[in-house]
């Protein structure tokens, strides 16, 4: 299909299978300017706001901190830095409720702001001439700034930027699609701060050594398209192109967006980098620009607070760690019909059991709905095999067959039917006339399978350890025997020279020795196959992380809501 673009040209776009046209409800929040929340009376900063390992806290209760001061350092390869969003006193480093479907608690730094917002004197200098800097310097800066994917999944950006070890990235895609209903934070960002996004795009292009950047935006955001387009025209940014795409859910899914823009399909369970493509959210690009050009860490974000459950739905720039209650109060408080608190969009977001948690780097939307907006589904009835689910599935799966296999726990068939290519977009559940909670089945089965894989790996490791131990014991025993024999040897040797040692027995002993040695080798060998090159290991790890990210409960990073 050809779609006319802001520059008047016609651009060829591709379709993905299925998808839905949903009522958008974006006007609730998109019609007002982005407001800024005054500094809240306390901030709660979970040590894990990102995918990967929690950060390592550097501060203690009672310590005074500056705005932008590093509070926690990344730990391990996949982790992110955490900064003080404002100046104040650390009250505690303790367990606190976090945003989680089951209302879990996790270690958090509790900060009591002093209201002055005094910046740290140790902030790094701005890098305005980033073109002249080595990409690694810029990457280090992004790592320092604690930038994570702001579309929802919060994968550390510096790690993502480094995962391409084998293919050269030629195309950068910025995801400004925001296809989930209600959410407008990216729209607001694009309208308000087009320069930051485009600066971020240039920095990303420089890091990746890519030659062009496509910014995908749905055609329901004409103002955002115009804002970005004007800046591109103004600065003659010929490497960057805005691409207007049709509004259809879930075109903001990373794989779907790549298909729409390029016609290429990311291989099943693979990474976009295999195609030489990398996607980032527009918000992430803006945060990267701030980190590099201004030398500021990621301490705030734009979040959509919306739904008929709040009195004044709007987009608001919040400090990371702002309690939900504060954000809701700023949005006029709850209406009487507040019924569900959804973190993320209505299609892929999860419900929070209460509002005691703070917002984190990845919180793009707090959606408080009325019972009319998100009715409780009627009880599920039998599947009538109508195929509506298969017609809308963007991954072109057969959801009803997956459902049968999930129900009967036929784990083999489930995988043969590509369960792991399901992006949990919810289209199938949405259309199912029998109101079967299909996605719930898929999620549950995926976690069973993942646990199994982990258990299998553990069992395999245990087996290897066991065999290794056995062969070690054997070797020790053998050595002991040998020593014993050697001690005896002086007595027997003279006899041996006298031909007392039976040559047959000697041959047997030698043979047994060989067998033992062979066994030992065998026992160790499997371990050797584990000795992959660091490169290979990294690839595996990257794939695993990526899969983990895709399957994370929270909204997918680039299914920009």
């Amino acid at each position, binding site marked *: 299909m050809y779609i006319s673009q802001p520059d008047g040209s016609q651009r060829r776009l*591709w379709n993905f*299978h299925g998808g839905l046209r949903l009522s958008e409800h974006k006007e609730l929040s998109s019609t007002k300017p982005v407001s800024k929340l005054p*500094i*809240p009376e306390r901030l709660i900063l979970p040590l894990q706001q990102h995918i990967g390992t929690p950060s390592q806290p550097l501060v203690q209760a009672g310590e005074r901190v500056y705005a932008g001061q590093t509070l926690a350092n990344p730990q391990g390869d996949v982790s992110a830095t955490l900064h003080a969003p404002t100046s104040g006193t650390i009250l505690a480093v303790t367990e606190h*409720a976090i945003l989680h479907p089951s209302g879990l608690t996790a270690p958090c730094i509790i900060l009591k*702001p002093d*209201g002055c917002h005094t910046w740290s004197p140790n902030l790094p200098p701005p890098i305005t001439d980033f073109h002249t800097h080595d990409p690694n310097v810029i990457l280090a800066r992004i790592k320092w700034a604690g930038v994570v994917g702001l579309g929802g999944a919060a994968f550390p950006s510096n790690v993502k930027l480094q995962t391409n070890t084998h293919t050269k990235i030629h195309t950068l895609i910025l995801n400004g699609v925001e296809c989930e209903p209600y959410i407008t934070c990216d729209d607001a960002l694009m309208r308000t701060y087009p320069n930051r996004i485009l600066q971020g795009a240039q920095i990303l292009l420089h890091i990746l050594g890519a030659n062009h950047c496509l910014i995908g935006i749905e055609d329901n955001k004409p103002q955002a398209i115009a804002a970005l387009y004007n800046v591109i025209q103004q600065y003659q940014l010929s490497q960057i192109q805005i691409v207007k795409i049709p509004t259809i859910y879930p075109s903001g899914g990373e794989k779907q967006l790549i*298909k729409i823009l390029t*016609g*290429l*399909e*990311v*291989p*099943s*369970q*693979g990474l976009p980098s295999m195609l030489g493509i990398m996607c980032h959210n527009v918000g992430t690009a803006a945060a990267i620009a701030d980190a590099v050009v201004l030398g500021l860490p990621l301490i705030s974000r734009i979040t959509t607070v919306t739904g008929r459950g709040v009195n004044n739905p709007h987009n608001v720039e919040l400090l990371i760690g702002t309690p939900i*209650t504060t954000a809701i109060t700023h949005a006029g408080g*709850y209406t009487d019909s507040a*019924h*569900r608190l959804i973190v993320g969009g*209505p*299609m*892929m*977001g999860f*419900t*929070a*059991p*209460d*509002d005691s948690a703070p917002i984190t780097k990845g919180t793009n939307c707090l959606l408080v709905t009325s019972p009319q907006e*998100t*009715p*409780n589904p*009627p009880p599920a*009835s*039998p599947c*009538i*095999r*109508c*195929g*509506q689910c298969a*017609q809308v599935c*963007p*991954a*072109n799966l*057969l959801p*009803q067959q997956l459902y049968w296999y999930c129900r009967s726990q036929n784990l083999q068939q489930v995988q043969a*039917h*590509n369960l792991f*290519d399901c992006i949990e977009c*919810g*289209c199938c559940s*949405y*259309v*199912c*006339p*029998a*109101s079967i909670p299909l*996605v*719930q089945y898929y*999620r549950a089965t995926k976690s069973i399978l993942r646990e199994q894989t982990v258990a299998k790996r553990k069992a395999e490791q245990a087996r290897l350890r066991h065999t290794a131990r056995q062969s070690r014991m054997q070797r020790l025993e053998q050595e002991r025997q040998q020593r014993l024999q050697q001690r005896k040897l002086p007595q027997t040797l003279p006899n041996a020279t006298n031909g007392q040692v039976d040559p047959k027995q000697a041959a047997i002993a030698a043979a047994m020795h060989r067998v033992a040695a062979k066994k030992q080798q065998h026992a160790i060998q499997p371990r050797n196959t584990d000795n992959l090159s660091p490169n290979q290991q990294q690839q595996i790890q990257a794939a695993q992380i990526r899969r983990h990210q895709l399957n994370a409960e929270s909204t997918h990073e680039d299914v920009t809501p």
Partner: protein
Amino acid sequence: MQNQPMKTLPPKTFSTATSPHLLGFKNTSWIMRQVLLALIPGGMAMLYLFGGGVLINLILAISAAIAAESLVLYLRSKPIIATLSDLSAIVTAILLALALPPTLPWWLTIIGVSFAIIIAKQLYGGLGYNLFNPAMVGYAFLLISYPAEMTFWIPPWMLNSHPIDIAGTFKLTFTGVLPTGLDIDAISAATPLENMHNGLSMRNMVEEIRDGRAWGLFGEQGWEWPNFAYAGGGIWLLYQRIITWHIPVSILGTMFLVCGIFYLLDPQVSPLPTFHLFSGATMLGAFFIATDPVTASTTPRGQLIYGSSIGLLIFIIRTWGGYPDAVAFSVLLLNTAVPLIDRYTQPRVFGTHILDDDI
């Protein structure tokens, strides 16, 4: 905000649910209602052509279906009202009733519908679990057990020299007694398909057979109207996205193609392709029966295979088989093949076999 005393209100709690939190508007009973709606024109056409007998059949069938379904649900201790309200039993009853001769003895209608609901649907586990299309199981059962009654059709009114009024039909259906002064041959007529079939097997030429009857646009006068009406209803279902084009198009396309080939080979012994398309239960079968979601293939490619096989079988059975119409048997035969077809026609999953596909 700073200087306000800290309030520690208990957190507000919310109901939790899993995503997606939005719901589509379609549900099973909505779908069945659309099917019922789409059947109205065809039903009206049948009523118009064949008179009150059609209505009697419909009423008998619906009542029997409700009774049979309630009975089984009661025995299986399942919710009765909730299940009945999915309307699937009523759809089955109506599809079967529309396929029955208008003057069928009342007890046969009841037996057929009960067989369809109890044996073909509920004994398999109820809606969604049945392998075979219940209405067609009922039809095939009646046709095999009571061939004489099942092939006894009165002609459409425009060809009927001895029309029977509603009271007469009522009497005939419930007592088997014909109105005074009429005998069975006077009121019965072969359907055009039977005519063609019998005629051709007696080595008559198509032209001669056609000359013998009053012909309408495509088929015999009268019969083409319900077919048109069913096709119209089918297009409504397509428009409402309850069915996809794959099954009806492949059935009709295959029939048209195969008949066309035979017609071109020898127009003397083969009727025009449109004759088959607008005769008998073709359109009812193509749009309403073969598309029954529960028993049809669910993959797009599978549906094409399923549909064209049905189309081919209908033509074969009509032309060389022992039964004049063939929709029921063709659909039932292909129902058995559905698991196999589905298995080998899975769509290409996003991101797989990319090289096989030119993108």
